């Protein structure tokens, strides 16, 4: 068994005459948190949609856990879960019902137990029987990610998992992602927040102009660009640090 979870070679995709992905190459190892960093419209979602079998590539070789996305989409879908830009849940159903539905669709043998475990793990037990559209943004995201874990897929795609969340909820999601990765799940994360990539990712790829312009660990990237210079500056707290200190969650900011 190879150690590569995701392999992308020469991936191209255009919409009408707009070339979104010109030539994308990258590899993600099993158990890694890999961040695809790029500004709005860089093609991150397009890439994730192709990797998760929602869209067909124009050309290139894309495989997940050794399965080709075009020739073996069924096997790919067995191996993945997609958590899109919006919390993909049914707001009229309770948290428990949402989880049960996915458990049944995934055909897990003990849906009730799987659901109960996830509710505990994601701290949703108290809210389990409330309708999901009554949840806070952070709770919705947690439920969304919990739904993605059912059937223990080897690879999870998280497309801008913290866009639109308040700082508190963002940290909740970060903690969740770190936990997942400790459990051996491979995570491909897209984000436009540099800080998010810095907090979470083992390796970072920067998608720009339809190509991956650089890949590496944060340390690699720091060494490469820009050249190090020594400066002495007074450390001012960021607004985020002030906000979190005031609401009493300050300790978690620098935790990683």
């Amino acid at each position, binding site marked *: 068994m190879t150690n590569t979870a995701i392999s992308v070679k020469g991936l191209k995709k255009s919409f009408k005459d707009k070339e979104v992905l010109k030539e994308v190459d990258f590899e993600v190892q099993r158990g890694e948190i890999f961040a695809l960093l790029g500004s709005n419209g860089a093609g991150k979602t397009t890439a994730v949609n192709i990797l998760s079998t929602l869209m067909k590539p124009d050309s290139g070789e894309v495989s997940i856990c050794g399965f080709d996305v075009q020739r073996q989409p069924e096997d790919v879908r067995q191996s993945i879960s*997609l958590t899109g830009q919006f919390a993909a849940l049914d707001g009229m*159903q309770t948290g428990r019902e949402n989880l049960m*539905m996915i458990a049944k669709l995934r055909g897990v043998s003990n849906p009730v137990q799987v659901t109960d475990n996830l509710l505990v793990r994601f701290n949703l037990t108290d809210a389990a029987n409330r309708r999901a559209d009554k949840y806070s943004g952070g709770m919705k995201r947690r439920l969304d990610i919990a739904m993605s874990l059912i059937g223990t897929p080897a690879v999870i795609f998280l497309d801008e998992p913290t866009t639109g969340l308040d700082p508190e909820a963002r940290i909740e999601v970060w903690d969740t992602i770190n936990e997942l990765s400790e459990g051996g799940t491979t995570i491909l994360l897209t984000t436009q927040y540099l800080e998010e990539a810095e907090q979470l990712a083992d390796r970072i790829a920067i998608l720009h102009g339809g190509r991956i312009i650089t890949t590496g660990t944060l340390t690699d990237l720091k060494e490469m660009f820009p050249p190090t210079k020594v400066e002495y500056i007074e450390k001012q707290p960021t607004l985020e640090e002030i906000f979190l200190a005031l609401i009493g969650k300050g300790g978690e900011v620098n935790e990683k």
Partner: protein
Amino acid sequence: MKSNTGVLLGRLMRNILRSPDTIITVAITPIMLMLLFVYVFGGAIETGTDNYVNYLLPGILLITIASGVAYTSLRLFTDVKSGLMARFNTMPIKRSSVLWAHVLTSFVSNALTVVVVILVALVMGFRSNADILDWLTVVGILGLFTLALTWLAVIPGLTAGSMEGATAYSYPLIFLPFISSAFVPTETMPKIVRAFAENQPVTSIVDSVRALLYEGTVGNGIWIALAWCVGIMVIAYLIASKAFKRQLG
């Protein structure tokens, strides 16, 4: 695959039962129309029958179904926008089961509303001497009509850019019965309007249902009625399937 459709159907039906207003609002417009036509206009309308509720009911049922399928568009649109559709489509389940669950939901919820409207009509004096076989044929025609309009409703549900866009298409569908034999005989209409009224799907369906309910025959128009239903269904199904595939890029 069948059990997946069942799981998804269960979810949609539960949502409907949780918002009974969707059943009530769908039933209320046709019931109001029925009251309006029977107790306000009815006395002045010459249809050649003494029981105007009987005359009116088939057309009212078609209006009920036409307004009911708008909710199918709405439910599909919500699934697409919320990302649930993308979630289902990246899961190891048959993709068509997602669409079929929506179609079956439409079928069941429309059947419920139609029963409510028929019960109100009974209170208002609707009587039929149709036997069980006639009734089954009526159910068959209305079922086909529901399926045809539902597949039509799937198209805007998948492709619309806004919630308004997803449901707006149903207005002309609801209006169609007014330019047909549903409320008044077509004979008094001006030539061009009459030509349209007599050759659009609603008239043949209304006439067939009427023949079954009150004359105990299937009428002459049944084949035209069936051809319309099946024709609309097949074309709408093909376009909807294509829209579904295209949505997947």
